[in-house]
Structure formats: C-alpha cells, structure tokens
C-alpha cells in the first residue's frame, strides 16, 4: 500500500490525510445530527405543553435526522473499530496470521457496503415520487442516507485496513 518512491510515499500520506478528514467530517456531522434530533423531539414536547398542540413535522424530521446520523457514523465506526465484533478468535490465532483474518473481515464489510451503495441507490430512485407523510418532501431524501452513508464509509474501511497493514509490517509502531 505504501509507495515505493519518496514521491509515492508523499502522495500516500496526502491521500491518508484526505481520507482521515472525510471520516472526521462525517463523525462531526453525525454528532451534530444527533443533537438536532434531540432538539426536535424536545421541541415537540415543548409545543405540546406550551402551545397546546404538537408540531406535526418534528417527529418525522427527527426520524429522518437520526437515520442520517446512524448511516454517516458507519465510516467512523469502522475506522475506530466500534462496530462491535465478537473478537474471541482474534486472541487465539497467532499474531502473524491475524492480518489475513482482518483482511477477510474487511472484504466482508466491503461487500455489504457495495450492496448498500448500489441497491440503496436503486431503491432511492424507486421511491423518488413517494412523499413523506405530513411533510412535502420525497422519501428519497431519507432513503439516500443508506447509499451515501455507505459510500462515505469506504474511506473509513480503507484507513482501518491501512492501519492494520502498517501495524502488521511494523509491529513495534502503533498506527495513529
């Protein structure tokens, strides 16, 4: 994965920085959306008590915001190994063979991401004409969270694999 020449190495580190920025950006957007969803639901309670009737759009929009938050955090969750694996096998196989297991796991994640990107995209196109209840927008805006979240998760997967490869080649240096 690392370039053979100095120039190649530089390009690689630029790419890593760029991908890291994408993952961080998604992490921040996801956290902000979670905050927005909490505000929307709190607003719903507030309107019911203070104004006497709840806003019809707050519940629907809070659901949409949470769906986007969940799929945008997919990349950071893969990148920082927060996807909750059952890791028993990793402690029993020799450390030199571990990289093959990690590669296989990452390929499995990649397959699922590809299915979500392609079929999520097709599903999004299919529902373009359907409207979200109580709101005058297309359901496609909600469905789009799946293909887009999965697409921007690929940098997270690439970096997780890159870290594992680096650690495998230089066991003494722990990656960033």
């Amino acid at each position, binding site marked *: 994965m690392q370039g053979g020449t100095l120039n190649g190495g530089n390009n690689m580190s630029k790419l890593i920085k760029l991908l890291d920025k994408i993952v961080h950006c998604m*992490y921040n957007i996801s956290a902000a959306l979670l905050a927005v*969803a909490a505000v929307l*639901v*709190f607003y719903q309670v507030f309107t019911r008590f203070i104004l006497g009737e709840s806003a019809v759009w707050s519940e629907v929009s809070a659901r949409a915001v949470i769906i986007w938050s*969940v799929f945008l955090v997919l990349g950071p969750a893969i990148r920082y190994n927060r996807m909750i694996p059952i890791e028993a096998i990793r402690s029993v196989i020799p450390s030199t063979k571990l990289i093959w297991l990690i590669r296989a*796991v990452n390929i499995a*994640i990649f397959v699922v991401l590809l299915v*979500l990107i392609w079929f999520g995209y097709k599903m999004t196109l299919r529902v373009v004409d359907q409207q979200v209840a109580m709101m005058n927008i297309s359901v496609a805006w909600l469905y789009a*969270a799946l*293909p887009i979240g999965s697409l921007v998760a690929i940098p997270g997967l690439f970096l997780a694999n890159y870290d594992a490869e680096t650690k495998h080649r230089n066991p003494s240096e722990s990656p960033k």
Partner: protein
Amino acid sequence: MNLALALSLIIFFTVSIPVAISIALASIFGITFFSNLPLLVVPQKMFTGLDSFPLMAVPFFILAGNLMTRGGVSHRLVDFAKSVVGGMQGGLASTTVIACMIFAAISGSSVATTFAIGSILIPAMVRHGYPVSLAASIQASSAELGVIIPPSVPLILFAVSTETSITQLFLAGIGPGFLVSIALIVMVQIWCRTKGYGKDDSNERMPLVPSFLHAFWALLMPAIILGGIYGGIFTPTEAAAVAVFYALFLGLFIYKEMSFSDLPEIFRTTAITSGAVMLIISAASLFSFLVSLSGMPNAIGAWAQTTFSASWSFLLAINALLFFVGMFVETSAAILVLAPILTPVAISFGVDPVHFGTVVVVNLALGMFTPPLGVNLFAAAQVADIQVQRMFKSLIVPVGTVICMLLVITYVPQVSLFLRDLLS
C-alpha cells in the same frame, strides 16, 4: 434457507466480522442463494427497521447517560448510596449495588453504569482492603442492573422487535431490578462478613440529609423520566429527549462540572456508540423479515410444542439457550435476532410476552458479566486495571446468585407483572 441463515450467521460471528455486518451479510447470502427475492429488500428493510419513533429512545437514553456521567452526577449518587448503606461492614460493596441501582434508573446501559460508578467505587474498595478482583467482580455484576431497571436499551429493543409495549416492559423491569439488587446486597454482606472484608467502610461517610440534598437534582431525574412516562405526560422517546436536556441543564448550570466545550466529544462518543447499536437494529430487521418469511418461528414453535410438555420445561430450555448465547453474543444482537423467533413460541405456551421480555433481558444481562465474554467484565477490568481472567474465580458467587434470581423471575411471573397489573 433457515439453516443457511443460522449457519452463516454463526460462522460470520465466529470469524469476528462486526455484528451488524454479519447479520446483513448472512441475509444477503440467504437472499442471493436461497430465495427469489431481489437484493432491493436489503436497503428497504434496513431502512424501515430504523424508521421508528420508539426506537429513537435508544440514542437519547445513551446520550442522557453520557451527559450525566460527565456532568458530575455519578459521584453525588455514590455519596448518597454510601450514606444509606455504607455504615455497616461491607458498606462499600453494598454502596456499589445501590449506586448502580440508582444510576440504572437514569442510564439505559450497563457499560455506562460500570464506568460511571466503577471508576469511583472500585478504587475506593481497593483502598479499604478489598481484593481488586473482588471489587471489579462486584462492580461488573451490579452494573447489570443498568439494563434491568428502566430506562433500558435492551428492554426497548425487545419491545420494538416483538411489538410489545415499551411502557409495560419498563414497568415489568422494576420488580426484577429490585429483586436482583436485594439478592446482590445479601450476597456481598454474607461475603464480607465471612471473609472479613470492609470492616472500616463507614469512614468518610456523609450524613444522610446533606448527601440527599447534595444529590437531589440527580435523584429527581428517575422521577421525571418514569413519572413522565407513567403519568401519560410523554412517550418513552420524548422522556429520553427531556432527560437529555435535563442532564445538560444539570451539568452546565447546576453542578457546573461540564462546559460547552465538552459537548462535541460527548455527542461524538454517543453518535458512534448508539450508531453501532442502531446499525445492528437495522440489519436485524432485515434478518427477522427473512426469518419470518422462511417460517422459522412456526417450525420452532411446532417442534417446541412436541418436545416440551409444559411451559416450565420450555422456559428452562429457553433460559439455558439464552445463557449460552449470552456468554458469547452481544446483547442487542441476541435480542434482535432471537426475540422475534422465540416470543411467538413463548406466547403459544401461555407465557405473557411482557414477562418473557424481562426473562430474556435478565438472562442476557447475566451474560454481560459471565466469562468468557461480557461487556461489563471488560469495562470493570479496564477500570480496575487488571486482566479479565483474574476476575473469573470471584465471579462464581455473583453469577450463581443472579441465576437463582433469574429462576425466581422466570417461575414467579408476578415479580415482573404485579406493577403492570396494579396500574392497569
């Protein structure tokens, strides 16, 4: 397709593919090779699984728990619990149980409870002469109360995946929560008195009234959450959002132990923790769609009806199965995959689904501190800075105690249902 789904899921879990990805991949595998369905159902079912208002209580309760932990609530609750039960021998061990019990009524997660309470009480117990492995084991086992006492993320997941009422399940969690708490207190008391631990635990203890006033605003939180839900003032999801704002208000303006600059990190941590759980929910709704399409619940139901003569033997077998699964599989995944399959079978044996929900959650909560794999074990070992293996021996008694209580909860449905029946 049944066998293909089950086998591929077990293989993917075993080779350490993340839980959500394993479930999605097993479903993709089942759809591609064992059905005529198009792969379009993958995004469709994963989307509809998440598009649910009750489910949004999950990220909000996790967020409220994280804000409470950072905002200075945990040490106030510990001081209060210590002033209640800390005066006797083994008072610190009993304080751990009581503090976890109160914190459980704020937080929906047992790992959050382990970190919040354990980071204060494990070092305190060690200072008072408890062996570190024992202190960590008491903490890991008490923290399971986090998911039994409402609000509870696993109870919400059971409710959503089996279309049972969250409100009724929350009510049903209170009785078992108290029962397990009392059993754990009796256990630590006998343990401390026979082994001679915790003789000077009553030192550095605040009197009851000042400690109550000190923790008053934190203690008000369970009253707001549960009172609001059962008073019909708001839904569980709205209660969770109110809890978030109450926790923010306490941390920022009353206790002033949190600043605005702490918030981005708390929101990021919550987004990733709750996002990982929500992705499992999303994948599991696809999986349970395929499972119900393949007729697995009916097949298992028919098999169970011929194999088990009565509900008691069925419940015993279910408990054995869940205990085994809980030792290895993450709780959310176990609930989301198994509850939709097992609940209809339990109903056919005349078991109330709300009662069944508490049995499932108490059993899987037991798995959280049963070796070899348990999230509370790893969290407590991390706080205590010891290897997980060192805790194994001292976990035998807590695991045995909770198994006894699980049997009581299983065979005396009133423990779970009396509050619901009383209030309905």
